[in-house]
Each structure stands twice: as structure tokens, then as C-alpha cells.
């Protein structure tokens, strides 16, 4: 089986090369087939690997020495174990569906850009696969920055629009801030342990001092903050919605943004050693979950709602990691990949039908025009709200139960966030699909269900959103939690939370009940009378995202630019260049002045000569010996 491993990233790479180089000569349909087909091939290999891991355990395949210096050896190696094989399935599986969806969604593009789109998308999958398959932190970092690059390229896919370019740049730069943290953590590991291999690091983790562990894990977490859009580095993700919608589904919902969770789950051995970091992770996750949920309450752009919802759900995953429920977090990554990809693709279907209108206030009553989209979107909404037996319920419940075991306050806030989630999702649902159509007559005339290339992925994802949770049914509900058993070989430091059965039933009941109430309230409120006016008062603050973007702009962007301008115009021009030119000017000036001494008058020259002799004699006089001799004379 080992000889198959390299095929997984190879297929998308080949797809990237063919589509990238042949984007002008290949036909659109061929590009679509190559783009999706390579991912499908990867998916099939991933399936084989997955079952292989399940039966035979993990494998590490070492290909060549990436960097080999005496004191540092980093090999280009892949590690296929439970965690990475699960992620492989998510990436290639969901990725394949999104590729198929894209073939129809991007149909209006010129062939050349169509090819470029698929090339980028394949490159993204390739990088993402490197990220999860790498057997050391350096390979992970390669994928880590690679996905950042693809995200940049795809957000700015329509590069004629400058706003999109700014969004792309913002995403890349914010990710880079996180990457610096990641990189420093890797250096720290290499400095202390001399290796970046997972196996070696985890084996020798106990030799690290508590300070080292805390620092390393916090720095890694900075990387995760950037990639997984956590406070304070989250503002790029909502802006990233400038990219094509399938991109948002794949990169900014299902896969790339969960890289931070993957990384922390991968490093669970290190994280569990530092209580400080665990608390930081949990709190940041919780705060992000709540904070972005409040913003999502008042957004009117269909994709923005989903974007903030993604940030919020990622917050839940970090809460899960922070309380030691690694399996729960990974589980939520999986179910979230299903239902959030579904929701994004559903939104894409709506946008497609509405001719690139994204404002939900101009929609309404789409239920009868887009029956499949409507139904699948509803399933997605239910799943994310955590209503049993949909997938979101199981994963979210696991995180919340673990949070309760750690600290009931975490649980309380988590449930509040879950209620908000249910509320804004059904606000979105009701405003979009229920009520009456509020767009132009022309738009209504053209409303149509999307082609089957788009609806089939929706249906598959809807199915997965329904049944995806069954791999992790907790024991109190009569399940075996197969996922837990499968992942236990990697997530060795999982914290087992022990609550009585009754407590767990009560907790579940409360969270489901609250979510249900929020759903009913939202449907009642918004199906008849959607919010069409701009929000007032506090709602306006939410609508403007707590003005965080403006805050960052004032405090970081503007000051940096001001500093840069100051250095360029003042320091560089006047101080440093001024000093250099000043030396030149001084020489010039003094020579011009000294020139005047050369008057041409012989008398002057002699006068200077005499004065100079007098000076020399006076200097001699200072010489003690001579002074005495002369004083003896007189």
C-alpha cells in the first residue's frame, strides 16, 4: 500500500499542470473532466489508504531528504495514519464534489480563465494534501503556506476588481502573520529537540521544559489563529468571500480553515502538556464563536452570514480542542465540512439563479423556484443548528459535553452561541426561501433550478449532513463512537470527560430545546416580515462587524503605512542620504572657502608662513625642555 501514497497528491498536481499549461488549448469540458477526475482519482486512492490504515495501522513513507545538514535532517516524508487518512477523505471527497459543482458554476467564464480556475483549485487540493500528509512540521508548513497562496489566488480570481484584490492581499498577509508564529514554533522545536518529525517530537516531548512547551504550543496556535480565522486574526475570512462561491465552500469552509484544528489535533501530545495553552485555546475559541455569531445575526449578504458562521463554528472546534476533546473537534471538522460546504454550495446555487445577487433582502420565496436547493439548504441549516439526528448534533454535543466537564460556564456560553447559530441560520433560510420574492421582475423571470452538475453534489452533501454524525454516536445514545476508536491511535491525550448519564441527557435536552426555540422564533419572525431596513442602534454595530476592520485599519494598517512613509521621505531622504550628501556638501563648501585664502598676494602667503612658524615655535615652547632652555637664555 505504501507505494500508493504519493499518488494522492500527485493526481491533483498533474491536474494543475495540465489545466495550467493547457488552459488556452483545452476545451472547457475537458478541463472540467481533468480537474474533477484527478480529485476523484485521489479520493479513490485515499479510500484505499483509509481502509489500509483501519486494518493495518499507520505508515510513514520517506521519499527523499528535503534538507539534510549534519545537525538537521528534514525528509520529504508522508505519514498516513488515522487522522491524516480521515482528512484525506474529507479533502478529496468534499473537494471532488465541489469540483463537479464548479464545472457548472463557472460555466460563464472564458475557457482560459476556466482553465486557470481549475488549475488553482487543483493546486489548492495538492497543497492541502501536503499539509495533512506531511510527516513533519516542515512539510506541513509547505502545505500550510501553499494553501494560503491558493486562497490568495482564488480570492482574487476576478482580478479586474480591485476590491477583490485587496481582500486577497488581506487574507494572505493575515495568514502570514500566523505563519510567522508557526515558523517560530518550528524553530523552537528544532532548537530544543533537533528535529521536526512528528514521531520524534512526540516521543521526546517529555524532555521539554514547561516553558518551552507553552511557548511552542502558543506559537503554533498563533499559526492556527491566522489559518483558521480566530480572534484576532479572523477578519480576512469574511472578506475572502470575494472569491467564487465554490472556492468559499472548499477553502473557506470545508478544508483550509480547518488546518489549524488539524495541526493542534496532530500536536495533541504537546498541547496536553500545557494547561496554559489549553485554556488560551478554549477561551479564544469560545470568544470567537460568540463574537462572530453576534455579527452573523445582522449580516445581509448570504455569503457573509455563512462566513461568520464558519468563523463561529471554527471557534467551537477550538473550544473542543481546548477542553481536550480532540476527537470531538475533528468530528466537528468532518460534519462541518459536510454541512457548511452544502450551505455554501446552496448559496452558490441561489446566487447563480439570482444572477450574482447576494443580498438576501432582495430574495425571498425562492422555495418554489429552487426546490432541490431549498430542501438541501434546509437540511444544512438543521444540521448546523444541532438538531438530532442530523450530523451537527452529534459533533457539537460532544464538544459541549466536554466543555461542561471542564467548566460549566464554557458550556453555558457554548449553548448561547448554538442558539444564536440556529437563529441566524434560520433567519437566513427564512429570508431567502420563505415569504414572497422581493427582487426585480426580470430576476424572477429568470429564476431557475441549477443544472444537475450543481444539484447532485448538493444532494450528496445533504445526505452526508444527515448521516455523517452516525460514525460518532455517543455511548449514552446506544452507539459505539467508531470515530473515537479509530482516532485514538493518534489522539492519545484525549481527555475523557466523565459525567453521569442523567447529566448528559439533561445537557443534550437543554441545548436541543434552546436551538429548537431559536429556530421556531426565527422562522416566525422572518418568513412574514424580513428585516429590510438597515439596522439601528446596537444592530448597526453588529451590522458593521463591531467596527473591527476600521479599528485594525486605524491602528495597524495606517500606522504601518505612516511609518513607511516617514522612513521613506524623512529618514531615508534626509537623514541617511542627507548624511552622505552632507559629507559631500561639507567638503565642497569648505574647499570653496579655503580657496579664498589663495589670494595670489605673495604678501599674504608670507604672512601665513610666518604665522605658521610662530605657531610651531609656540608649540615647541610648550615642550618643557625647550621652554627651560629659552627661559635660561633671558
Amino acid at each position, binding site marked *: 500500500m505504501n507505494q500508493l501514497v504519493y499518488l494522492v497528491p500527485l493526481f491533483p498536481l498533474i491536474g494543475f499542470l495540465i489545466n495550467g499549461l493547457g488552459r488556452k488549448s483545452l476545451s472547457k469540458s475537458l478541463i472540467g473532466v481533468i480537474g474533477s477526475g484527478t480529485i476523484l482519482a485521489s479520493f479513490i486512492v485515499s479510500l484505499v489508504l483509509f481502509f489500509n490504515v483501519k486494518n493495518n495501522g499507520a505508515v510513514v513513507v520517506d521519499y527523499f531528504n528535503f534538507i539534510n545538514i549534519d545537525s538537521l535532517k528534514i525528509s520529504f516524508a508522508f505519514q498516513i495514519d488515522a487522522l491524516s487518512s480521515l482528512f484525506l477523505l474529507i479533502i478529496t471527497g468534499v473537494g471532488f464534489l465541489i469540483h463537479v459543482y464548479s464545472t457548472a458554476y463557472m460555466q460563464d467564464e472564458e475557457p482560459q480563465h476556466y482553465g486557470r480556475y481549475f488549475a488553482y483549485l487543483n493546486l489548492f487540493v495538492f497543497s492541502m494534501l501536503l499539509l495533512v500528509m506531511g510527516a513533519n512540521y516542515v512539510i506541513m508548513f509547505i502545505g500550510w503556506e501553499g494553501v494560503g497562496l491558493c486562497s490568495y489566488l482564488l480570492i482574487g480570481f476576478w482580478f479586474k476588481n480591485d476590491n477583490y484584490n485587496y481582500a486577497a492581499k488581506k487574507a494572505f498577509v493575515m495568514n502570514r502573520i500566523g505563519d510567522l508564529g508557526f515558523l517560530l514554533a518550528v524553530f523552537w522545536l528544532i532548537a530544543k529537540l533537533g528535529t521536526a518529525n512528528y514521531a520524534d517530537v512526540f516521543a521526546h516531548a517529555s524532555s521539554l521544559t514547561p516553558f518551552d512547551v507553552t511557548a511552542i504550543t502558543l506559537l503554533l496556535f498563533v499559526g492556527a489563529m491566522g489559518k483558521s480565522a480566530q480572534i484576532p486574526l479572523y477578519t480576512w475570512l469574511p472578506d475572502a468571500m470575494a472569491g467564487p462561491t465554490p472556492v468559499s465552500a472548499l477553502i473557506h469552509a470545508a478544508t483550509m480553515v480547518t488546518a489549524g484544528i488539524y495541526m493542534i489535533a496532530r500536536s495533541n501530545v504537546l498541547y496536553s502538556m500545557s494547561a496554559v495553552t489549553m485554556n488560551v485555546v478554549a477561551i479564544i475559541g469560545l470568544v470567537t464563536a460568540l463574537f462572530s455569531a453576534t455579527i452573523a445575526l445582522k449580516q445581509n449578504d448570504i455569503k457573509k452570514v455563512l462566513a461568520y458562521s464558519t468563523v463561529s463554528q471554527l471557534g467551537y472546534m477550538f473550544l473542543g480542542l481546548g477542553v481536550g476533546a480532540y476527537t470531538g473537534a475533528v468530528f466537528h471538522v468532518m460534519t462541518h465540512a459536510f454541512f457548511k460546504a452544502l450551505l455554501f454550495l446552496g448559496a452558490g446555487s441561489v446566487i447563480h439563479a439570482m444572477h450574482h445577487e447576494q443580498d438576501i433582502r432582495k430574495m425571498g420565496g425562492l422555495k418554489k423556484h429552487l426546490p432541490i436547493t431549498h430542501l438541501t439548504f434546509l437540511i444544512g441549516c438543521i444540521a448546523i443548528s444541532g438538531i438530532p439526528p442530523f450530523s451537527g448534533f452529534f459533533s457539537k454535543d460532544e464538544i459541549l459535553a466536554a466543555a461542561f466537564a471542564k467548566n460549566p460556564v464554557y458550556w453555558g456560553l457554548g449553548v448561547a452561541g448554538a442558539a444564536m447559530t440556529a437563529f441566524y441560520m434560520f433567519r437566513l433560510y427564512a429570508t431567502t426561501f420563505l415569504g414572497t420574492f422581493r427582487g426585480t421582475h426580470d430576476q424572477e423571470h429568470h429564476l431557475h433550478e441549477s443544472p444537475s452538475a450543481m444539484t447532485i453534489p448538493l444532494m450528496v452533501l445533504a445526505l452526508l449532513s444527515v448521516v455523517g454524525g452516525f460514525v460518532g454516536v455517543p455511548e449514552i445514545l446506544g452507539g459505539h463512537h467508531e470515530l473515537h476508536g479509530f482516532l485514538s491511535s493518534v489522539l492519545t491525550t484525549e481527555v475523557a470527560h466523565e459525567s453521569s448519564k442523567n447529566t448528559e441527557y439533561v445537557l443534550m435536552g437543554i441545548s436541543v430545546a434552546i436551538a429548537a426555540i431559536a429556530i421556531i422564533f426565527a422562522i416566525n419572525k422572518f418568513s412574514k416580515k424580513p428585516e429590510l431596513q438597515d439596522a439601528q442602534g446596537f444592530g448597526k454595530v453588529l451590522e458593521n462587524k463591531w467596527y473591527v476592520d476600521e479599528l485594525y485599519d486605524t491602528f495597524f494598517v495606517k500606522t504601518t503605512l505612516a511609518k513607511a512613509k516617514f522612513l521613506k521621505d524623512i529618514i531615508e531622504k534626509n537623514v541617511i542620504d542627507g548624511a552622505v550628501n552632507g559629507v559631500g556638501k561639507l567638503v565642497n563648501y569648505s574647499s570653496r572657502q579655503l580657496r579664498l585664502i*589663495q*589670494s*595670489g*598676494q*605673495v*604678501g599674504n602667503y*608670507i*604672512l601665513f608662513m*610666518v604665522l605658521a612658524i610662530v605657531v610651531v615655535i609656540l608649540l615647541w615652547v610648550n615642550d618643557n625642555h625647550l621652554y627651560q632652555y629659552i627661559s635660561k*637664555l*633671558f
Partner: protein
Amino acid sequence: MPIQYYILLALTLFSIGIVGVLTRRNAIIVFMCIELMLNAVNLLLVAFSKMQYNLAFTNNKATVAGSEAQLFVFFIMVVAAAEVSVGLAIIVMMYRNVHSVDVNFLNRLKN
């Protein structure tokens, strides 16, 4: 006579020469002042030579100490004579050219 008197006299003569060179514009007078300085030096040389000789004489009656300085005096006088002839020739040429012996006319070095 103590050597100090000679030194003071020479110093005075030399200073007069310097002041003359610096202040006078007539080339001939400048020239005479230079001669004055030269002779001040000559006087000093002769005086020191005599002093050296007197000091050495008490130990050794056959000494010739200080005679080199007197030799120098002769050198200087010869050179001065040569210099006078050349210098006066220059001054004559200068007068032919600019109809003046004012040294301040000789400022073409400036450009």
C-alpha cells in the same frame, strides 16, 4: 660679552626684516628686508660659532670648534650675492613689464 646680546640683536634685525617683507610693497625694499633677515642669521651664526670656540678652548687649545658655522656664513653671503643679482634682474624685468615695482601686481598665481 654675553651671547644674549647677540641673539637679541639678531632677533631684532630678523623681526624688522619680517615686518618689512610683510608690510612694504616696493619690491626693492622687500628685497632689502630679505637681505636683512639673512644677515641677522649670519650674525647669529658668527656669534654662536665664537661661543662654541670659547667653550671648547678652555679644554683644548688646538680646537677648531664652531668653524663650520663661519663656513656657513660664507656660503650664505655667496648665495645672497647670487640671489641679489637674479632678484634685481627679475625686478628690472618686472618694471619693464608693468612699469612698477609694487609686489601686489604680482598676483597672477591666483588664476
